């Protein structure tokens, strides 16, 4: 996986990208809440929302293939939960409504994350008084997320290239070691980061 796969297009230039992050976040929240409140009888609202979202997608100039790929990648999670709804009275209709509604919500959130850099979203959260400790945690997490994912992938590859077994017990054991090592390295990295932060006048 490429490290920037998920918000690769968040720094493009388009009328949508130029909107303030707070406006986009508020609009996405209103859209999702609205979709959640719409009942099955008022289904035309789903069509209106779909058209609106497609308009935004076109205006944002994000490659359509990327959006479709993201949507398909997440759809199994929706179908998995919606699947349960089939086993109850009138399940087919409930299933259809759930899948439509959730897919539109997913599309909204994918558009938000592909038109707004995560750092801008964090800035909005800070302005609405989300506690500073949580913001610091989120900012550091976002910064080191891809570093750690790449590190884990590297350790796994190194391990795979040196062992010739594909026995399941061995796989589990090596996964445990990789994750354990990852934690040890994360704590060491955290200590170095703390020293660097202090050196630059943090607190």
């Amino acid at each position: 996986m490429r490290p920037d796969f998920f918000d690769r297009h968040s720094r493009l230039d388009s009328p949508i990208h130029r909107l303030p992050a707070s406006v986009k976040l508020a609009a996405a929240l209103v859209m999702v809440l609205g979709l959640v409140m719409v009942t099955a009888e008022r289904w035309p609202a789903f069509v209106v929302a779909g058209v609106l979202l497609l308009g935004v997608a076109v205006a944002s100039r994000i490659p359509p293939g990327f959006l479709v790929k993201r949507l398909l990648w997440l759809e199994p999670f929706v179908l998995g939960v919606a699947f349960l709804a089939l086993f109850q009275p009138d399940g087919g209709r409930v299933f259809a409504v759930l899948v439509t509604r959730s897919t539109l919500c997913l599309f909204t959130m994918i558009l938000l994350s592909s038109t707004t850099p995560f750092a801008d979203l964090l800035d909005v959260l800070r302005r609405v008084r989300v506690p500073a400790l949580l913001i610091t945690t989120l900012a550091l997490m976002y910064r080191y997320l891809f570093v750690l994912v790449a590190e884990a992938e590297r350790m796994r590859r190194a391990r795979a290239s040196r062992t010739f077994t594909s026995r399941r017990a061995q796989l589990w054991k090596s996964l445990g070691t990789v994750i354990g090592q990852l934690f040890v390295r994360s704590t060491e990295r955290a200590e170095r980061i703390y020293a660097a932060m202090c050196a630059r006048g943090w607190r």
Partner: protein
Amino acid sequence: MHIPDGFLDGKTIAATGALAAGGVAVALRQVRRQLPPRKVPLLGLAAAFIFAAQMLNFPVAGGTSGHLVGGVLAAVLLGPGAAVVVLTAVLIVQCFLFADGGVTALGANIFNMGVVGGVGGYAIYRVVRRVFTGTRGLVMAAAFAAWCATALSAISCAGQLAFSGTVVWSVAFPAMVNVHLLIGLGEALITALVIVAIARARPALLAATPEEDTSLGYEPVLLFGLLISLGLALFVAPFASSWPDGLEKVAERLGFAEHAADPVLGAPIPDYAVPGISTAGMATALAGLIGTVVVFGLAFVLARVLVPKSAPETS
């Protein structure tokens, strides 16, 4: 177990949002009071660590794969308050950056996996730890708590789906719980293996945590306990008393009793052939109870196998 948008209704969104906000507030207060400043970056790194660990899939039977949730792992390594903060950060990033788990379901997901899974699992861990000491006790308690936390989160999740009127309880409860009784086995095994690996590579990391956490005052314990019981009372209690009737009705109408039995294959009780109990809901509850005893025994054996007798004591 990430609930997407669109599966919870207004009242559930409000209730879970309030419960999660309360839980995160209590956790932040506790962390701010107890965590030394030099450990603040560790929260962010631990969140990135849990995220990266969740991306590593492990093979499960039949070509499918699962991944770690890490609530109990984070709680054992960092303490329950920090675990809630870390899992909240993971869920927020997954929601806003990856669209995995809905915004309106963020409260529910934080409550299920962070508060119920993390803090509830940690409580179980502490109880077991009181009886079983040493490295073996640590590994066993963590494995058992990880399994329990997975099951508890699934029960809470099923309750929210039923409370929203999305999926009836008599379907949601057996399906969610039976699947997660199995997934929990993977979670328990991986949690144990990771803790054994850390104990071998850097025992000091495990030894440092208990002494910092014993000072977890009565106030957070009380508040967390209150929040969890409130959530369970709201989402689970109304259904727990009425499940046999509702299920019988649905089973009669659709004849799905056989379908519902599918996911239970290989669970502690492979079919519902428990004498005298005919409904999936009751049988699931009973399977859960028997499973708890069996997993407790398995965790005990696992710890004996994984940790050699001469292992250095960590706490």
